[in-house]
């Protein structure tokens, strides 16, 4: 590794062998995110628990190739499917997704239910029409915000120079591609599609995150859904609660790895 051609794109892949009992695939979020957010937090302890770990930079992110177009969820699902095929992962995997990475996990499980043993989603919701509307608004707002030079000054004043650089990075990724236009296109899932995802699912949410209007709606809809809420926490659960998320994930792996 770490570069391999996946679905036609040069893709940055990091593997951590953990003993080969089963496989966990980490799926990071959109914009400034990369495989680093998992590789430098949860991946080492999960591999130490005896599970092989796969993490990769999604298309357009990190060190993976950034085509100008090709950012529907269907494209991301096809990438993951091709990656697992090329790595000869023939057993069902555990998907762990953060934000958009969790949305991808739900879409992958809906498209390939036989390939998924369980899902852990951190501040993520499936690609419903409601999600698409929300994403369209967020991405439109983000594009407008990042087009204004004053926005970067505001970010630096409030969050520091590191976040100013991250914002530049996000602007570069979003504005040099069709990401903002294509991601909300789906393909979208109906509530019936979601209710058919019958593997165990752990929904980890912040009480003030993106699903704060109804924290229990998703886990109630999923046949084998479980819910863990961090009180007083916003969307950045993985960043701000990574030690607690690690405990939840290790417990989950202990319960669901055969």
């Amino acid at each position: 590794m770490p570069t391999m051609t996946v679905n036609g794109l040069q893709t940055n892949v990091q593997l951590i062998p953990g003993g080969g009992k089963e496989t966990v695939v980490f799926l990071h979020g959109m914009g400034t995110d990369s495989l680093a957010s998992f590789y430098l937090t949860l991946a080492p302890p999960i591999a130490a628990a005896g599970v092989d770990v796969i993490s990769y930079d999604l298309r357009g992110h990190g060190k993976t190739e950034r085509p100008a177009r090709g950012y529907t969820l269907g494209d991301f699902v096809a990438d993951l499917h091709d990656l697992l095929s090329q790595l000869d992962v023939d057993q069902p995997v555990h998907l762990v997704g953060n934000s958009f990475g969790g949305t991808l996990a739900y879409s992958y499980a809906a498209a390939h239910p036989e390939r998924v043993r369980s899902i852990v989603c951190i501040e993520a919701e499936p690609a419903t029409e409601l999600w698409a509307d929300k994403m369209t608004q967020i991405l439109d707002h983000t594009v407008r915000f990042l087009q204004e030079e004053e926005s970067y000054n505001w970010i630096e004043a409030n969050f520091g120079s590191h976040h100013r650089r991250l914002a530049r990075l996000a602007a570069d990724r979003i504005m040099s591609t069709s990401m903002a236009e294509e991601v909300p296109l789906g393909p979208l899932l109906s509530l019936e599609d979601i209710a058919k995802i019958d593997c165990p699912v752990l929904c980890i949410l912040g009480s003030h995150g993106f699903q704060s209007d109804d924290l229990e709606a998703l886990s109630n809809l999923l046949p084998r859904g479980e819910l863990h809420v961090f009180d007083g926490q916003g969307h950045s659960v993985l960043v701000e609660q990574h030690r607690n998320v690690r405990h939840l994930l290790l417990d989950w792996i202990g319960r669901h790895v055969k």
Partner: protein
Amino acid sequence: MTIQQESPTTVFGSVAELLYRLVGDADIVGIEITPESTFHEDLGLESIDLVTFAGILTEHFGLDVNLANFLAEKDLDEVIGLRVGDIADFVSDRLAERE
């Protein structure tokens, strides 16, 4: 290649040399890497570069010099503020544990 022993000064020199290799000399002309240089702010690197650098360190020093394991115990602020000297200290500690 696996290194058995290096003095702290030599370890810092090795880490700095590997960093120059990571970013490419052309990208950091005029920037001197010191123990106080921060990975993100001073060297202009991203977290994904830390992942790449973790692989470079392992390749150079050996499998037990695992930067990802070391950083998994840190908070975000500590990772953002990571100095080259912190990485060199970590490497020195791991090498010392071999003795």
